C-alpha cells in the first residue's frame, strides 16, 4: 500500500488540474467558433435559419449537460468515429458552449439600435461587411461580461466529464479519495483549486459589468 502525504495529494491534484484547464480552453475556443456559426444562423434574414438556430439553442439549454455528454460518448461511435473520453468531453462541451455563447452574443446584436444597420447600409456596405465592421465588434464589446461569466460556468462544467471517464481534476480526486479515505481533505482541496481558477474570472466579469453600467 502506498502512503499518500498531504503534498502527494496536492501535487497529483494540481497535475490533474492541467487537464481541466486544457479542456476548458479547448471547449471555450471550439464553442466560440461553432457559436459564431450558430449566431450567423440565429440573426439571419431567413426565417427558417433563425428557427433552426433557436431550436439548436433551446435543445442545449433545455437538457442536462450530463445527458449531452452521454449522447456524445455513446452516439459518435455509431457514426463510425472512434471516440475516447477526451474527444467526447471536448465535443460535448464545445456544442454546449456554442449554444450559450450564440445566445449571449445574439443578445448583444439585438441590443444595438436599428440605426447601426441602416447607417452601414447607407455607406454601401453589404451584409457581411456590416456584420464584420459594425455589428459584431459592438455586440462583442457589450457582451464581454456575460461571456467571461460563461467561461466560469464552463470551467465548472468540466467536472461532469469525470463521469464519462475523462481524467481531469474530479476523476483524479475520486481515485485519490479511494486510496486515502480522506474525502474531507481531498474534495476540500478540489473545491479550493476550482475556486482559485474561477474567482479571478468572476471578479473580472464583475468589474466589466460595473464599467458597462457606468457608461
Amino acid at each position, binding site marked *: 500500500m502506498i502512503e499518500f502525504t498531504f503534498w502527494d495529494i496536492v501535487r497529483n491534484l494540481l497535475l490533474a488540474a492541467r487537464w481541466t484547464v486544457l479542456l476548458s480552453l479547448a471547449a471555450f475556443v471550439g464553442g466560440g467558433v461553432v457559436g459564431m456559426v450558430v449566431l450567423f444562423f440565429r440573426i439571419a434574414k431567413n426565417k427558417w435559419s433563425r428557427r433552426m438556430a433557436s431550436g439548436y439553442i433551446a435543445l442545449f439549454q433545455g437538457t442536462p449537460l450530463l*445527458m449531452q455528454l452521454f449522447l456524445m460518448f455513446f452516439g459518435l461511435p455509431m457514426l463510425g468515429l472512434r471516440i475516447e473520453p477526451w474527444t467526447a468531453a471536448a465535443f460535448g462541451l464545445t456544442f454546449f458552449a456554442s449554444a450559450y455563447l450564440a445566445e449571449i452574443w445574439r443578445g448583444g446584436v439585438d441590443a444595438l439600435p436599428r440605426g447601426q444597420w441602416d447607417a452601414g447600409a447607407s455607406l454601401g456596405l453589404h451584409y457581411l461587411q456590416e456584420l464584420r465592421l459594425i455589428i459584431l465588434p459592438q455586440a462583442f464589446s457589450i457582451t464581454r461580461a456575460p461571456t467571461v461569466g460563461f467561461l466560469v460556468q464552463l470551467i465548472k462544467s468540466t467536472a461532469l466529464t469525470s*463521469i464519462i471517464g475523462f481524467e481531469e481534476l474530479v476523476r483524479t480526486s475520486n481515485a485519490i479519495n479511494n486510496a486515502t479515505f480522506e474525502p474531507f481533505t481531498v474534495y476540500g482541496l478540489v*473545491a479550493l483549486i476550482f475556486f482559485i481558477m474561477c474567482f479571478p474570472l468572476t471578479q473580472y466579469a464583475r468589474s466589466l459589468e460595473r464599467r458597462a453600467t457606468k457608461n
Partner: protein
Amino acid sequence: MGYSLDFGWLADATGAIARGAATTILLIAVTTLAGTLLSILGAAGRRNGPLLLKRAIGVYVEIIRNTPFLVQLFFIFFGLPSIGIRLDPVLAAMLAMTLNMAAYTIEIVGAGLDAVPRGQTEAALALGLRPRQVFVKIVLPQALKVIFPALTSQIVIMMLESAVVSQIAVRELTYEADMLQARTFRAFETYFVVTMVYLVLSMGLRRLLVSGGRRALGAGVS
C-alpha cells in the same frame, strides 16, 4: 459494421423512467421552496443584518458560485461524514441543490429588493406598518415580480443540474437511465429518450412557474 437503432426495450422501461422523473420532480420541488426561502432570508440578511452575517453570506455566495456543483455534492455526501455528519443520499442531494441554488438566487432576490423604490418603504412606515410587515407585504412582492423571470431560469437550470445527483445513487431520472442502459445495452437510445424527457420536464417546469407566478404575483409576470 452498421448500427441500427432499437427502441423495443422502451415498453418495459416506462415504469422506471416515470419513477425516476417523479424523483427528479420531487427534488426540484423541495429545492425550489427551500432555496427561495433561504435566498429571501439571505438577501434580507445581506442588506440589513449585522456586519458579521453580511460577510458570512458574501463568503458563502462566492464559494458556491466558484466551485462545481458536483464537487459540492461530493463534499457534502463523502466529506461531511468524516466530521460526523452522515446524510442519506436523497437528503444530501436536497441539501446540495438548495445550497447551490440559494447562492445564485440570493443575488437575484437582492437585485429585486434594490429595484423597489425607497419611497415604498417610507410610505408603508408612514402608514404605521411594522418593519417586518413592510418587508413581507410591500417590498418583497414587488421585488419578486421584478426578478421572476431570472428566478424561473435559475430553477430550470437547477433541475437540469440535478442529473448529477445520480452519482451518489439517488434514484432519479439519470440514475434510472444508467440502470436501463446497463440492462438493455442500448446506451444511445436510452440516453436519447431520457434527454427528451428532461427537455419536456424543463419546458413544462418553465410554463408551470410562469403561470403559477402570474396567479400569485398578479399580471405583468413574464
